[in-house]
């Protein structure tokens, strides 16, 4: 063994004698010196960023509309504090919101006024006199933070606390227009200078943020640029060994040829390890000392980077022993690198942008029809004859937004439709689909008699979140401003009443009747609503609080009880309620099983580690709960026996939906478009809806996937790294919504497939060197 260690030592000695290595080390030193002053400061979040206002021009209209009002209101307060010149500009502004697309004014003038308004608004937030008790009297101050600051008294607050207080006032005053914000933001600093806008982040998310940045740096900076440099630097090592005057001497020594080759290979890797350790170790020190993130897992990127390099180097080495030319090594290895990159990118892009969007995420029983909907919200009816899911009930909004949705990797909540819901009373489907751009939602109706064709006549309540059937067959809608019941005909446009040929203002009757409790429950994000199919109570989650409401005798909903979860207000959660059980899925992967009446905690599980739950559905009889996790695993909770088990059904790890039929049977969707129906509690398969594969699916399954499997996946090892950092098998694009789809990291596939490929390359090289004559 000492002979082979001598070869490795010689490689290191060669590395240290190499000018290239020293140049690389000097460059790394310069980079680390450049990054060393980078740090952050944690500030209270108060500044309104452009994307904090859902529709800025519409918000400006809201403020302007109150200009002449005599009643104090938040909008009036803002208006009154704006400089006169800007008030004038606002009055002259001729826009009515982006959605109407009617811009008669010069667009540059509009842009100027909009950006000026944004600046003025932020200036107002810094004013200690912004809070006027009369103006904000009617505002529901749901946020604990806001109440605490108010109770402390504005005069007692520091400047940044005043700004934060004012920001919270705005959020509470315009819950459907201004997004909620985490209490603190991260301000990136370079030495004493701050740059970029503050990033709104909860303190607990800093580590996650750093991990994401680290994975990004790993992928592009080290994984791409670093690998190309490493290929260039190490390409001559193996061909140099084949110089006849050097090779024959080596081969005359009492050593094994293949071990000699492997030692040279390891020596090349050691060469790279020096640089990688220096760079990554340096970055780790900077992250630790400047950002306080002492995460030893970041150092795992050293072996991962080495592994990525080893994949390419195994190819370079095989090419090196066959052609014995550094130039050929570099050229072919870079071609190989490109091929890996393109194949990996092609597959991932195809999956995330097209294939995964066809995954089933909901099942609706519409009488004797079985309807599913996918990630894009497209409803499809099962056609038993043709054995396909047949798209139905597609609204115009969905057709308009389809090209945009295909571009997005994950679909943001604002673009997701609500429904379809089967309205059994009228044998029709109902849904709310966001307009494009997503400022408002349209309400769609599809009659069975009309082949479920979607007709759109009215808009849905602002911030429609969910729709549920009530006990008597009416439909109740949970929206950000409260609860509404559908009372009118949604397929007819709301026309104002006319008298003697005159239109009576504000006389158009909305088909939605507010049925909110006396103090409406505002569902500001992160929020979630669920129905107890057994009791028809609604469970509403917002700001770390679960509120159970029930329908009173007069039809209005009444708050039954509330329960506050431990942890921060801004945490997202997913809830399911059935019978006397309430299950709350937390963003750290915990499942809390509570008594729905007393909120007494029965159990707490974390069955999938930090992987988050996505859907929790309760069976109509309230006995069963199906919990689908983002990593595609399904767990079942039996409230009767209080047993919690991973469901013994097909497709674990690839399950996208699980829900219950009206007769308490279990639907499970897997393999993107396959749906299976199981009997409970035996979990015996009753029926499988497995559609014929279309050409696109066939091409993917029999073309893209096998090719992808054969090739190594060095470009995806950043996912392994990210998994090692976070312990999560999925990557969340939306931290405020657990039910939003997440990108699967699939951390182990790139590892084993790349390891296998590298092994094949090395074995081929060993066999070649053993049998070839030199």
């Amino acid at each position: 063994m000492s002979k082979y260690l001598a070869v490795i030592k010689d490689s290191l000695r060669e590395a240290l004698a190499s000018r290239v290595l020293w140049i690389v080390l000097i460059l790394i030193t310069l980079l680390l010196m450049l990054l060393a002053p980078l740090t952050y400061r944690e500030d209270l979040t108060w500044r309104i960023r452009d994307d904090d206002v859902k529709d800025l021009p519409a918000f400006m209209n809201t403020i302007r509309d109150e200009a002449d009002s005599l009643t104090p209101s938040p909008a009036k307060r803002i208006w009154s504090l704006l400089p006169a010149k800007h008030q004038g500009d606002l009055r002259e502004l001729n826009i009515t919101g982006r959605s109407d697309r009617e811009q008669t004014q010069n667009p540059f003038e509009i842009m100027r006024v909009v950006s000026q308004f944004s600046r003025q608004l932020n200036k107002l937030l810094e004013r200690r006199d912004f809070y006027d008790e009369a103006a904000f009297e009617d505002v529901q101050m749901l946020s604990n933070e806001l109440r605490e600051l108010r109770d402390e008294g504005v005069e007692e607050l520091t400047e940044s606390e005043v700004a934060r207080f004012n920001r919270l006032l705005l959020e509470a005053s315009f819950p459907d227009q201004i997004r909620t914000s985490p209490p603190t933001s991260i301000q990136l600093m370079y030495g004493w200078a701050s740059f970029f806008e503050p990033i709104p982040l909860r303190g607990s998310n800093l580590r996650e943020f750093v991990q994401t940045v680290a994975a990004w740096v790993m992928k592009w900076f080290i994984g791409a640029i670093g690998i190309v440099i490493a290929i260039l630097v190490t390409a001559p090592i193996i061909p140099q060994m084949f110089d006849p005057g050097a090779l024959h001497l080596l081969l005359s020594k009492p050593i094994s040829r293949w071990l000699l080759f492997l030692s040279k290979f390891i020596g090349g890797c050691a060469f790279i390890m020096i640089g990688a350790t220096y760079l990554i170790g340096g970055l780790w020190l900077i992250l630790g000392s400047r950002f306080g993130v002492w995460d030893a897992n970041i150092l795992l990127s050293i072996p991962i980077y080495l592994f990525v390099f080893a994949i390419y180097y195994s190819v370079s080495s095989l090419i090196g022993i066959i052609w014995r030319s550094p130039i050929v090594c570099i050229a072919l290895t870079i071609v190989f690198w490109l091929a890996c990159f393109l194949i990996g990118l092609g597959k991932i892009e195809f999956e995330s942008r097209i294939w995964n969007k066809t995954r089933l995420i909901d099942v609706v029983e519409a009488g004797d029809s079985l309807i599913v909907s996918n990630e894009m919200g497209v409803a499809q009816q099962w056609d038993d004859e043709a054995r396909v899911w047949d798209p139905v009930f597609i609204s115009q909004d969905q057709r308009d937004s389809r090209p945009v949705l295909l571009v997005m990797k994950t679909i943001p909540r604002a673009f997701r439709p609500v429904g379809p819901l089967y309205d059994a009373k009228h044998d029709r489907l109902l849904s709310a689909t966001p307009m494009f751009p997503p400022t408002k939602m349209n309400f769609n109706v599809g009659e069975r008699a009309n082949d479920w064709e979607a007709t759109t006549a009215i808009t849905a309540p602002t911030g429609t979140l969910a729709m549920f059937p009530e006990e008597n067959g009416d439909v109740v809608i949970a929206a950000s401003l409260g609860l509404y019941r559908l009372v009118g005909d949604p397929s007819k446009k709301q026309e104002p009443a006319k008298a003697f040929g005159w239109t009576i203002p504000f006389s158009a009757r909305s088909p939605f009747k507010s049925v909110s409790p006396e103090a409406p429950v505002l569902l500001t994000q992160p929020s979630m609503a669920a129905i107890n199919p057994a009791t028809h109570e609604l469970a509403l989650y917002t700001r770390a609080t679960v509120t159970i409401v029930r329908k009173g005798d007069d039809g209005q909903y009444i708050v039954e009880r509330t329960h506050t979860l431990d942890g921060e207000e801004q945490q997202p959660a997913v809830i399911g309620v059935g019978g006397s059980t309430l299950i709350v899925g937390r963003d750290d992967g915990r499942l809390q099983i509570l008594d729905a009446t007393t909120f007494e905690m029965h159990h707490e599980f974390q069955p999938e580690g930090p992987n988050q739950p996505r859907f929790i559905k309760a069976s109509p009889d309230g006995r069963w709960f199906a919990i689908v996790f983002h990593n595609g695993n399904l767990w079942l909770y039996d409230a009767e026996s209080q047993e919690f088990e991973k469901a013994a059904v097909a497709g674990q790890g690839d399950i996208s939906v699980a829900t219950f039929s009206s007769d308490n049977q279990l639907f499970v969707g897997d393999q993107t478009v396959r749906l299976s129906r199981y009997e409970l509690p035996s979990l015996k398969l009753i029926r499988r809806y497995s559609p014929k594969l279309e050409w696109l699916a066939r091409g993917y399954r029999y073309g893209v996937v096998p090719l992808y499997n054969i090739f190594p996946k060095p470009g995806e090892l950043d996912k392994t790294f990210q998994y090692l950092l976070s312990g999560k098998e999925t990557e969340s694009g939306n931290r405020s919504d657990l039910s939003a789809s997440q990108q699967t990291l699939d951390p182990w596939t790139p590892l084993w497939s790349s390891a296998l490929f590298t092994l094949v390359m090395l074995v081929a090289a060993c066999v070649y060197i053993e049998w070839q004559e030199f």
Partner: protein
Amino acid sequence: MSASAAIEVTNLKKSYRNGLFGKPFAALNGVTFRVNRGEIFGLLGPNGAGKTTLIKTVLGIIRRNGGDATLLGKPAGDRESRLRVGYLPENLRLSSHHTALTALEYYGRLSGLSASDIKANRMRLLESVGLNGRERESIKKFSKGMLQRLGLAQALMHDPELLILDEPTDGLDPVGRSHVRNVLHRLKDEGKTIFLNSHILQEVELVCDRVAIMDRGELRALGTVAEIAPQQSEGVEVNLSVTGDREAVSRALGDRSVTDWQTDGSHHRILMPMLDQAAVDQCVDSMRQHLISIVSLNPRRITLEDAFLKLLDPSNAATAATSGAAATASPVIASAANDTNDIAADAVEIIEDVEVIDEG
């Protein structure tokens, strides 16, 4: 096969192919010889004769296509025997990141030496090849001769029983060559076996106990220098310096063959081949009878180079074929069959082999 042989090859064959579908080309075509322990053995031949191929086959760097080869009693390529061999390849290339010390450390470790053994030996060895004082310099600054001497030192690092040196004096100046020659003699005195592959004939003539001559993959001759050179000469060449009348000189020479005749007045320089000493005596008698005064008479010594060139001369190869292979091979037998009966038996095989060569 005898266990005492350092190298023994029997009917060794090796052919190469140009490309995948190219015609095979025989680099070694049934070569048979043995190198005894303790001797300096020289392998001669023009470029492309198959000398390096033979060494690579014996060391197991390439595989043979036929025949048999042993190294220190073990089959060719055996790792244990390679442990006891020091090898200096032709056109040695050492990585430029080395100093003399690190190069010796690296190759010493590859030869199975411990770090302490290396430390104990390397300064002494560098001194013996004349590189002391330069041991910490980068070998980038070394001349070809210095590199060659460093190569020799690495071959000696692990105190091998057998040294295989492929063109060891290549690129060396006369002083360097002399230095290497001295090292070889000293090693021989220490009982080492040295297998020397060279195309510098004077070098071989000066140091080798026995010599083999190869051409186009075949063995042309094998024996001591003394045995090979006269055998190829068919007598002696005499340089005769006389004074007298040209007519008289001509009469005295009679019908004897003359290679060269230069006249300066009454002084003549005549170069003529003679079969043996009797012919020389008869020529002197004839000169004296014609009253010609003999100034000097010098028989010219036949060198290994003369023998080598003659052996490789295609026209001479035809003569050898007609005159019979046994005569050509006789020194080989005499040399190879030194003492023991088993060697004699091997020699018979060699004769048969040489006959095959000649018939070919």
